């Protein structure tokens, strides 16, 4: 259970193709896959490079700095897990490094009204009780 959301929120399953990423989160490291053969970055984690079909990759730690690519503000509690969090925001963040991959996350430590496309943000870590550490973002002042 992350602090931005309440009890009952969906939790990621650690799967064979994704567990290295989530283990990195526990150490507060944002680890992005880079193809060993052609150097292309990809997210979310997959077993094979879509550009050159290599199955070999390395994990590169991102500095966690990026900008908001798009966002929504949700006042309607469609799920029990967001009942206490509405209105909440969800944002697509494009990283400045690691091939400018995009991640779905939330912009915290600011008002929803302040979130905008192009907003500069950096990663903040949110440890939770269910052994998942979530990556969220906050504005760079």
């Amino acid at each position, binding site marked *: 259970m992350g602090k931005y959301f309440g009890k009952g929120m969906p939790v990621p399953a650690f799967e064979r193709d994704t567990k290295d990423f989530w283990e990195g989160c526990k150490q507060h490291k944002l680890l992005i896959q880079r193809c060993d053969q052609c150097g292309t970055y990809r997210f979310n984690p997959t077993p094979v490079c879509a550009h050159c079909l290599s199955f070999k990759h390395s994990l590169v730690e991102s500095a966690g700095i990026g900008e908001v690519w798009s966002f929504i503000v949700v006042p*309607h509690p469609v799920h029990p897990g967001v009942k206490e969090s509405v209105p909440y925001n*969800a944002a*697509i963040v494009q990283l400045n490094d690691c091939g400018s991959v995009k991640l779905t996350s939330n912009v915290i430590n600011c008002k929803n009204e302040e979130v905008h496309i192009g907003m500069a943000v950096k990663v903040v870590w949110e440890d939770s009780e269910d052994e998942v550490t979530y990556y969220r973002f906050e504005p760079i002042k």
Partner: protein
Amino acid sequence: MSWPMRDQTAIVGIGETEYTRWGQIQRSEFQLCCEAITKAVDDSGLRMQDIDGFVTYSVDRNNPMTVAQTLGVKQLKYASLYPGGGNSTCGVIHHAAMAVYSGTADAVVCYRSLCQGQFGRFGHGAARTGATRYGGSNAFTMPFGVLAAVHRYALQARRHMHEFGTTSEQLGRISVASYANAQRNPRAVMYGRPITLEDHQNSRIIADPYHLYDCCQENDGACAVVVVSAERAKTLKRKPVYIMGAGHGAGHRDGGDEHSRPASTWTSSGFVEIARDCYERAGIGPNDIDVAQFYENFTGQVLMAIEDFGFCKKGEGGPFIADGNIDYPNGSLPINTSGGNLAEAYIHGLEMVLEGTRQMRGDSTSQVEGAETCLVVAGPAAPPSSALILRN
């Protein structure tokens, strides 16, 4: 090289149950499925023993074998599930046409039965299943509050607004046009309930920038379509509606995955390649389309699909709509003449193929005068998507 299947197959029968708000129909979803199929077969003039193929969506609970067995079909020669949900609306017809054209089957029924009152509302997204742990790409969206379709698609609409200055009022015009068409259609769930642009703007926010009236309905109902060869169609009682062009699939990495899509696909409904294929196969272009049915999961995705199909330039969908081009009867491209998913009913879009068929038969409640071609576009931004060009 022209497409060998052009005009070689035809829709010859359509059938549907009543459409209602979710939770209103007491008969089982499976019964509705069987009712819609028997009506479509009756409409065609064929008998059930003539039917030898069934196609539905992979998310349909009523699978082809169970349906064939229950309806006493003599021999099943073709059964198929098009992968996914609303994206399948036209893909099922395309599959049926391929089965018929190849000689695999003679008469194929496409169907969709959907009782959101009996099996959970799509609008509830992740809450519908009650699951707590999610794998695959959902693991990277749902824990962050992207829980339902409206969240995914509102993110895309926001980006279109940012890049091209598209406004909520322009999106609202799609909803107003669909509701206006529903006022002439007694089948429509929103018959007798017109809305104004003000109503759209004042409706509650579901996921900003989307208001309630940007979202499709949740309904109970079923519908079905019969496809046979063009040759056979000429011997049956209804005016054949020919499948002139069809296309399905997805462009490069045009996935539902929010993270990895190329920047250009964020402002597209994913039809660029499908549109090209449909036009090439039909041998016509956007200027030759007289009327269109665009699956509305959400209004912004309709706007982007209109751009993808070349009815206006990329980024100009907002002004195109605001200028009245999509309005019946005077617009250059009247769309969703039954009221569509927004105002007729959301039977996962298959009801829009029925409306396309009516337009080509000349008996729509919002009939476009002299219409000879109808484009039908399935669920946008949810590949593999699909589209059809029908002609009379």
